[in-house]
């Protein structure tokens, strides 16, 4: 009779053999050795058959176990990413500071250095220029500043900015946005660079708006604005429309809000889309002219969408690619 120890020994050997042979690149010699081992003793054959049967049963049960294992892998991967993100999170905060501090481009000529400031979509930041003027950048905005002895120059390369300019009679402050040139001594105003038109809105002081002609130095004044006035300047057709404006609405973005009064939804959507990575899209054309009034919080797109849904007959559906489709709610 065999003892229990012998039996265990045989089982362990059978397991060891099977484990050896499952590796994928088993030499033929090992396979032969396994066959030989099985042949030397009926108990060997039985033990190896048991392990092989067990393995076959386990294989059949596999898919569920595989799925569970993969879910574990995803969870572990998510954990690892979270740890990494804490790290990159810190560095992106640092990067935001760096972006807001400055990128200095050293030029070969003795001309003063140009400095760039920019914000990403959804970001807002305020920078202080060397002369003490403050510039608040709205979402997705990039500006270039060149501070000379006799002039202060800012170029808006994209987006919108609010300027609080420190008065300096000897150094005019000049903002260029496309073909619009804004010239001030000291005042508060905003400039928004658009695709075809630029909007300059004045909160206080006096602002001269001019149009760049073909030559860079050739400028022609198109409007002189005082506090509470706004100009929509369309350089292509040499047109500048001056009108009074609602400062609460025009400057709401400075506090992270958007304010509309009887504004067609199509315009509201265009405006809101400046602030969010996932764009809104009107899916029902009849919604385009729907007048929208109200204040929206720009810090959270979900809140904006909730507000649209609850105040108007709108249903928002997020498409898989992130685009938020706006439908007219079916009334029943």
């Amino acid at each position, binding site marked *: 009779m065999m003892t229990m120890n012998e*039996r*265990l020994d045989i*089982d*362990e050997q059978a*397991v*060891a053999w*099977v*484990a*050896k042979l*499952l*590796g*994928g*690149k088993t030499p033929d010699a090992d396979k032969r050795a396994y066959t030989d081992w099985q042949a030397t003793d009926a108990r060997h054959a*039985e033990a190896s058959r*048991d*392990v092989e*049967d*067990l*393995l*076959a*049963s*386990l*294989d*059949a*049960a*596999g*898919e*569920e*176990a*595989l*799925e*569970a*294992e*993969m*879910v574990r*892998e*995803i*969870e572990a*991967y*998510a954990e690892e*990413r979270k740890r990494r993100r804490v790290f990159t999170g810190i560095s992106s905060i640092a990067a935001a500071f760096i972006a807001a501090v400055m990128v200095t481009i050293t030029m070969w000529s003795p001309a003063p250095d140009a400095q760039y400031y920019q914000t990403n979509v959804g970001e807002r930041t305020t920078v202080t220029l060397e002369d003490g003027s403050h510039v608040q950048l709205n979402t997705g905005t990039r500006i270039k500043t060149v501070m000379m002895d006799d002039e202060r120059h800012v170029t808006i390369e994209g987006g919108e900015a609010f300027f609080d300019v420190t008065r300096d009679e000897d150094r005019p402050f000049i903002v260029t946005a496309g073909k619009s040139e804004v010239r001030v001594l000291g005042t508060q105003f905003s400039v928004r660079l658009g695709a075809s038109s630029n909007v300059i809105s004045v909160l206080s002081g006096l602002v001269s708006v001019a149009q760049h002609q073909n030559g860079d130095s050739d400028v022609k004044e198109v409007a002189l604005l005082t506090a509470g006035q706004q100009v929509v300047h369309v350089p292509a057709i040499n047109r500048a429309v001056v009108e009074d404006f609602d400062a609460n609405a025009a400057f709401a973005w400075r506090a992270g809000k958007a304010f509309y009064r009887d504004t067609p939804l199509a315009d509201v959507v265009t405006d809101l889309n400046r602030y969010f990575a996932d764009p809104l899209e009107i899916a029902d054309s009849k919604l385009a002219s729907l007048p929208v009034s109200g204040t929206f919080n720009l810090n959270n797109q979900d809140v904006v969408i909730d507000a649209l849904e609850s105040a108007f007959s709108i249903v928002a559906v*997020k498409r*898989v690619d992130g685009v938020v489709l706006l439908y007219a709610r079916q009334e029943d």
Partner: protein
Amino acid sequence: MTDLLDEVAKRRNIKALERAIKEHHGVLVGWLTKKLGCAADAADIAQDVYVRVYKFAAVETIDNPQALLFKTAANLAINELKRRGRVLRRQVDADDENMTDTVEALPSEAPTPEEAIGHKQDISAMVAAIGQLPEKARAAFVKNRFEDKTYSDIARELGVSESTVEKYMMDALKRLRARLMRKPQAAVLPLPRKARRGKS
């Protein structure tokens, strides 16, 4: 239809899903890319995952959106690996006379209800036994048996030597054997065999 979710529950489902998708999109695409070795396939499958969970959200209440996303991603990754022949399908291996066909597609002579129940219990006992293996033994076993990976593949993934992988496999087999085969001589928990179902 009464058996469909009401609007409120549906909206709540969708909102929770959207949040979860936003939160986990990077994880899913990252993991799928790693698993499938192809960013384009990973993106496609992630989209497929979202389509499926959205459909699911229309008819079922979702308690744990993250779990649903991960499970769906795992499932679709398996399908993709299967399509590429990188997952073993031994359950349909017709050469093995001892084995039944796949659980879902039992052959013409269906098992008796008792057998079917026993079969299900066997499956879940085996899945549980695999799930309760020590971490490394489990990972090695699952990758080898169900993902068709060689010891050298696994060694690379786990960052250990091939002989260590073999040790993990031995450990796994020993534990599974001890747990699923209580008597040393006979398998307590084999799947129902054709013979036991009265086949000639």
